[in-house]
């Protein structure tokens, strides 16, 4: 009896969230969120992915305290190329910088790139795709041919051209990646929009006199968003690898910036004698890419069980 009393409040909370007769808009929204979260956590791959990416966020936010007093940029020439040990967990590189601190601070750079690319790519892809799909006709033809043109650019080559024109740097790498990454999103959004625009609930809002922007933003976009988000998380690994590749080629992050790709590149010549210099950031790239892929896989299973 006392045990039941202890359990009761928690159960009523989940009951409130899972209620099939919510009493307010807030409860209906939180209930949807709760069920979505439950689905994410019940799916093994998205659960593991969430844990990895969640940790990445925590590491990026608390990079200072986690790295302790080690600085990612301070060079100590007398301890160059120290192997991993108690003083320097991941060892030091050829300039005597602490690799643990550099890897931890590298999470910020990586997350920054990932978020900037998403912020640029998702709106452009959605906007172009939804307009083309909803308006059809010549708007569709023009927008899709422009999309085809951008689709034809090889990503790394365009990035190299950008670096040559604007000078190397993370921002230019982000611009180059974004410019080549949005076309698949436009195609995805267009296909979804064409299917959704035929549905009766869109005809109903047209009958109500809703404006085209309102129909697109309030009624069509929420349904396109889920597949775009799935695609985005699945692409994140590719974005991280491209950013790292640009860093490796020397046109992304500049020397000194603790960027994982550039760190791998810096340790390339030492790989046989001082394996840790290139391996540790390489493992970081691998784990984070894996995390994003797992989340994407899991989300795809949840959002669209048919295509799994």
């Amino acid at each position, binding site marked *: 009896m006392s045990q039941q009393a202890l359990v009761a409040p928690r159960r009523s909370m989940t009951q409130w969230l899972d209620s099939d007769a919510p*009493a307010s*808009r807030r409860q209906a929204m939180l209930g949807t969120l709760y069920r979505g979260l439950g689905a994410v956590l019940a799916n093994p791959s998205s659960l593991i992915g969430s844990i990895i990416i969640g940790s990445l966020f925590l590491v990026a936010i608390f990079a200072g305290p986690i790295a302790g007093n080690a600085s990612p940029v301070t060079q100590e020439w007398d301890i160059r190329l120290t192997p991993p040990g108690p003083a320097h967990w991941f060892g030091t590189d050829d300039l005597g910088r602490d690799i643990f601190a550099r890897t931890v601070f590298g999470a910020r750079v990586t997350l920054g790139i990932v978020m900037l690319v998403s912020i640029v790519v998702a709106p452009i892809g959605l906007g172009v795709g939804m307009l083309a799909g909803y308006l059809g006709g010549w708007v569709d033809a023009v927008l899709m041919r422009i999309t085809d043109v951008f689709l034809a650019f090889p990503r790394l080559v365009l990035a190299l051209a950008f670096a040559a024109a604007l000078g190397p740097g993370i921002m230019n790498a982000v611009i180059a990646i974004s410019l080549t990454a949005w076309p698949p999103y436009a195609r995805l959004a267009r296909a979804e929009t064409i299917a959704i625009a035929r549905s*009766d609930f869109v*005809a*109903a*809002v*047209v*009958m109500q*006199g*809703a404006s085209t922007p309102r129909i697109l933003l309030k009624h069509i976009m929420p349904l396109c968003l889920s597949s775009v988000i799935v695609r985005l998380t699945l692409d994140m690994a590719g974005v991280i690898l491209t950013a790292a590749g640009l860093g490796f080629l020397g046109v992304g992050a500049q020397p000194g910036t603790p960027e994982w790709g550039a760190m791998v590149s810096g340790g390339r010549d030492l790989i046989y004698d001082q394996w840790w210099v290139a391996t540790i950031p390489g493992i970081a790239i691998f784990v984070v890419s894996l995390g994003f892929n797992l989340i994407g896989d899991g989300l795809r299973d949840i959002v669209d069980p048919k295509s799994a």
Partner: protein
Amino acid sequence: MIDVQDLSVTFRNGGRAVRAVKEVSFAVADGETFGIVGESGSGKSTILKAIAGLIAADAPALTINGTAMGTQRNKAQRRLMQFVFQDPYGSLHPRQTVDDCLREPLVIHGIDGIDAKVMEALADVGLQPQHRFRFPHQLSGGQRQRVAIARALILKPRILLLDEPTSALDVSIQAEILNLIARLRSSYRLTSILVSHDLAVVAHLCARIAIMQNGQLVELLDAASLRSGAAKEPYSQELLAASRGFTRATA
């Protein structure tokens, strides 16, 4: 109220053109319920969508409430008429609650007192306040169709277009929804057009009925002659006989 003059609709798909509706003319008086029956593919739903402005007619053919209308309509013209769709599973946005769905038309037209109007609309179609924040997947087919009817009536339109509003529902629910439509029609003083392939439904609700075949209007009947089977055209007689024969054979 609604005047249709030589309405033709052609669907073009690549090089192929299909004339779904061929020079159909009829008029619906204020407050009247007009029925359109015909087999699948006879163009009856297409006529309704053309009147609604969802499909373009080949040439201007519609005069509604004294104004010629095409597919481009302003808010006031849109508000004049609302639509109830056939499939209650496809006509509600899957990510919007009943509340969102009923609120949207009021927000679009900048109407005040949204909360009270939403509650009133729910009560009007026989839904409980507890249904207000449910998502469509948490409702039954009949409840969804009630929501769709509430959504159509919340703007207080003068014309209601009904596209087989009961054909996707269970037989027991069909009667409920039909009675609901009949009740709301008189309390809102609606002019309505009902499209159906079910002669019994049309005879129950409509005073005058158009019979369609292959995109053409075959005959205009009143409900009494539909019930007595006094159709002049051979196709209409066939259709009536078919529906009677079917009921006798299954009884």
